[in-house]
C-alpha cells in the first residue's frame, strides 16, 4: 500500500485557483458604483407593504430551516457510508454550501432571477450590487440560495466514497453558478418553461409548475448524480466477481436517522416557505401535505422491505420518507391531504424499486439519492399534473386556479410531462458533460489504494474517529512520563 503523504504537488494549482477566486469574487463587486442601489434599509418597502414584516419573518425563518437541511444531508450521507470516508463526506457537505454560497452570490442568482433574456437566462443582480442591494431582492436571494445549495449537495451522497475532493469543489462551483440557476430561471425566474406563451396556452393559463422544487431542486440534483455515478463507476467491492451487487453497510445508523429527521424538519421550511409570504394561508395545508406524503412513503417502504426480506429495513424506510418529501415538493400547495398520501405511497415504491433497479444495472448510488431525488422528483412533477384540485392559484389565492388531469385540465398534465423531459435532459446532459470533461482532464476518481484506505486519509490526511479505530495509537503519541 502506498504511503500517504501531505503535499502532492497540487499546491501551486490551488494557490492560483484561490487567488483567481478571490479576485473574481471581490473586484467586480467593488467596481460597481454603490450609489445606485435598491431599498437597502427597507423603509420604503415597509411603507408600501405593511405585511412585509410577517412575510419576511416567514420567508427568512423558513429559509433558515432549509439551510439546516445541509446538516441533515451530511448526517444521512455519512451515516449510510463507511467510517473511513466519514470526514470526507461531511467535508463535502460543508464545502458545497461554502462554495455554492459564493458562486450563487457572484453569478448564480443573476442568471436565475435577474431580468429575463429571451426566456433563457437572467441578466442582472451580479454580486448583489446595484439595484439588487435591496431588502426584498436579498430576501429572495437568501431563500433561493438555500434551495440551490440543496440541489448541489444531493450529488455528494450518491457519488460518495470515490471522487476526488478537488473535483467536488469544481463541481460545486459549476452547479451553483450555472447548471442549477439556468434551469431555475426557466421555471421560477420567468423563463420559458413556466412563462413562454406557448406553454401558458398549453396549460390553460399557466405553463409548467413546480411549487417548491421537486424538479428544480431535487430532480436536477438527482440526475446530475446519476450522470456522475455512471461516469465514476461503482465503489470497489460493490459488486462481486459475477457482477452481483453486495451491500456496503453504512457506518452510523443513529446519525443517518438523525439526518432524516433534520431533513424532514427542514422540509417544513422548504415547502411551506415557498409561498414566500405568510399571508398565503395555504401554508398550513402545505405543511400537512408535506408531512403526510413523507409518512405514507416511509410506511410503504418499510412494509415493502418487511414483506420482501422478512424484516423491516431502516435504510429504505429513511429513503422512503425522503422520497415522499421529494415527491410532494412540487404538488404540495395544489393537492388535497388524501392525494398527498397516495403520492407518498407511490414514492415509497419508486424509492425501493428504483434503488434496486439501478443497483441491478451496475449503477452504484451510495446513499440512494437518484431514486429519492431524481425519480421521485419527476414523479412529483407528474403528480402535480394529475392531482392539482383547483383550490389554489399560482402562489396566490387568485385565479387561474391550478387543476390537473383528475380535475379536468389534461393539457396542464402535458406541460408537466414536457417539464419532466426537459428537466431530465438538462440535468443529465450538463451533469454528464461536466463530469466527462473533468474525467478526461484531471480525472474524477481517486486511485484504488486511496479508495481502500479511505478518502479521509487519502484526501484529507485525517481520520474521523481516531479514538475508536486507531485508539491506542493515538494515546501512545503522548510523550507524557508519569513521575
Amino acid at each position, binding site marked *: 500500500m502506498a504511503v500517504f503523504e501531505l503535499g502532492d504537488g497540487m499546491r501551486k494549482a490551488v494557490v492560483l485557483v484561490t487567488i483567481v477566486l478571490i479576485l473574481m469574487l471581490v473586484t467586480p463587486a467593488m467596481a460597481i458604483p454603490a450609489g445606485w442601489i435598491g431599498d437597502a434599509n427597507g423603509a420604503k418597502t415597509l411603507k408600501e407593504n405593511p405585511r412585509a414584516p410577517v412575510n419576511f419573518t416567514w420567508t427568512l425563518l423558513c429559509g433558515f430551516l432549509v439551510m439546516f437541511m445541509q446538516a441533515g444531508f451530511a448526517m444521512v450521507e455519512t451515516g449510510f457510508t463507511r467510517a473511513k470516508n466519514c470526514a470526507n463526506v461531511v467535508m463535502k457537505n460543508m464545502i458545497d454550501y461554502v462554495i455554492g454560497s459564493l458562486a450563487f452570490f457572484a453569478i448564480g442568482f443573476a442568471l436565475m432571477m435577474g431580468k429575463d433574456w429571451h426566456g433563457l437566462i437572467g441578466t442582472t443582480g451580479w454580486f448583489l450590487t446595484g439595484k439588487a442591494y435591496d431588502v426584498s431582492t436579498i430576501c429572495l436571494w437568501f431563500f433561493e440560495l438555500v434551495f440551490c445549495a440543496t440541489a448541489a449537495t444531493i450529488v455528494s451522497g450518491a457519488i460518495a466514497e470515490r471522487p476526488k475532493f478537488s473535483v467536488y469543489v469544481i463541481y460545486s462551483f459549476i452547479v451553483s453558478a450555472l447548471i442549477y440557476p439556468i434551469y431555475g430561471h426557466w421555471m421560477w425566474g420567468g423563463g420559458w418553461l413556466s412563462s413562454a406563451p406557448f406553454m401558458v396556452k398549453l396549460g390553460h393559463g399557466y405553463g409548467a409548475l413546480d411549487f417548491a422544487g421537486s424538479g428544480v431542486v431535487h430532480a436536477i440534483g438527482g440526475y446530475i448524480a446519476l450522470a456522475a455515478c455512471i461516469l465514476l463507476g461503482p465503489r470497489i467491492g460493490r459488486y462481486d466477481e459475477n457482477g452481483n*451487487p*453486495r*451491500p*456496503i*453497510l*453504512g457506518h452510523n445508523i443513529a446519525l443517518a436517522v438523525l439526518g432524516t429527521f433534520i431533513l424532514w424538519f427542514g422540509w417544513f421550511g422548504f415547502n411551506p416557505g415557498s409561498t414566500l409570504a405568510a399571508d398565503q394561508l395555504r401554508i398550513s395545508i402545505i405543511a400537512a401535505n408535506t408531512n403526510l406524503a413523507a409518512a405514507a412513503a416511509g410506511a410503504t417502504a418499510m412494509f*415493502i*422491505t418487511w414483506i*420482501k*426480506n422478512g*424484516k423491516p*429495513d431502516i*435504510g*429504505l424506510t429513511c*429513503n422512503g420518507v425522503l422520497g415522499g418529501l421529494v415527491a410532494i415538493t412540487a404538488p404540495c400547495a395544489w393537492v388535497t391531504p388524501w392525494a398527498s398520501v397516495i403520492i407518498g405511497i407511490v414514492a415509497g415504491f419508486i424509492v*425501493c424499486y428504483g*434503488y*434496486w433497479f439501478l*443497483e441491478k444495472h451496475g449503477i452504484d448510488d451510495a446513499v*440512494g439519492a437518484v431514486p429519492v431525488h431524481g425519480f421521485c422528483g419527476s414523479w412529483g412533477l407528474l403528480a402535480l399534473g394529475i392531482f392539482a384540485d383547483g383550490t389554489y392559484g399560482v402562489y396566490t389565492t387568485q385565479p387561474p386556479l391550478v387543476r390537473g388531469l383528475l380535475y379536468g385540465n389534461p393539457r396542464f398534465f402535458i406541460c408537466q410531462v414536457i417539464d419532466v423531459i426537459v428537466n431530465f435532459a438538462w440535468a443529465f446532459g450538463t451533469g454528464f458533460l461536466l463530469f466527462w470533461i473533468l474525467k478526461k482532464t484531471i480525472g474524477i476518481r481517486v486511485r484504488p489504494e486511496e479508495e481502500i484506505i479511505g478518502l479521509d486519509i487519502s484526501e484529507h490526511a485525517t481520520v474521523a474517529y481516531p479514538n475508536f479505530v486507531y485508539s491506542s495509537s493515538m494515546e501512545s503519541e503522548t510523550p507524557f512520563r508519569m513521575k
Partner: protein
Amino acid sequence: MKKIEAIIRAEKLGDVKNALESKGFYGMTVTDVRGRGRQKGIQLQFKGRTMEIDLLPKVKIEIVVRDEDVEEVVELISNFARTGNVGDGKIFVIPVENAVRIRTGERGDKAL
C-alpha cells in the same frame, strides 16, 4: 507455565470471570475478537440487499497459569462458558517459557 486461551461467548464472560475469581484466578487479559466455527453466520440486510456475516463477535480470555493449575482453569472455563449450543467456543493451551511482572521485575511463576 501455560497460557490458556479461551474463545467464548461475550455474554458468558461475567460468569467465567466470577468463577475463576472464586477459585483465586484473578489476573487475566480479555480481547474482543470475531470467530467462526461450526456456528452459522448472521444474515444482514442493508437497503433491502442481504449479506451474510460469518465472523461473529466472541471474547478471547488469556490467562497465564502455573503448570499445575492448567487443568483446573480449563475445567472452570469449560463449565461456566458452556451453553451446549454450537458456538460455545474453544480453549487452547500454549506453552509459556517465562513471565515478567513489569512493576517489580519478578520473573517466572512469581510474576503471575
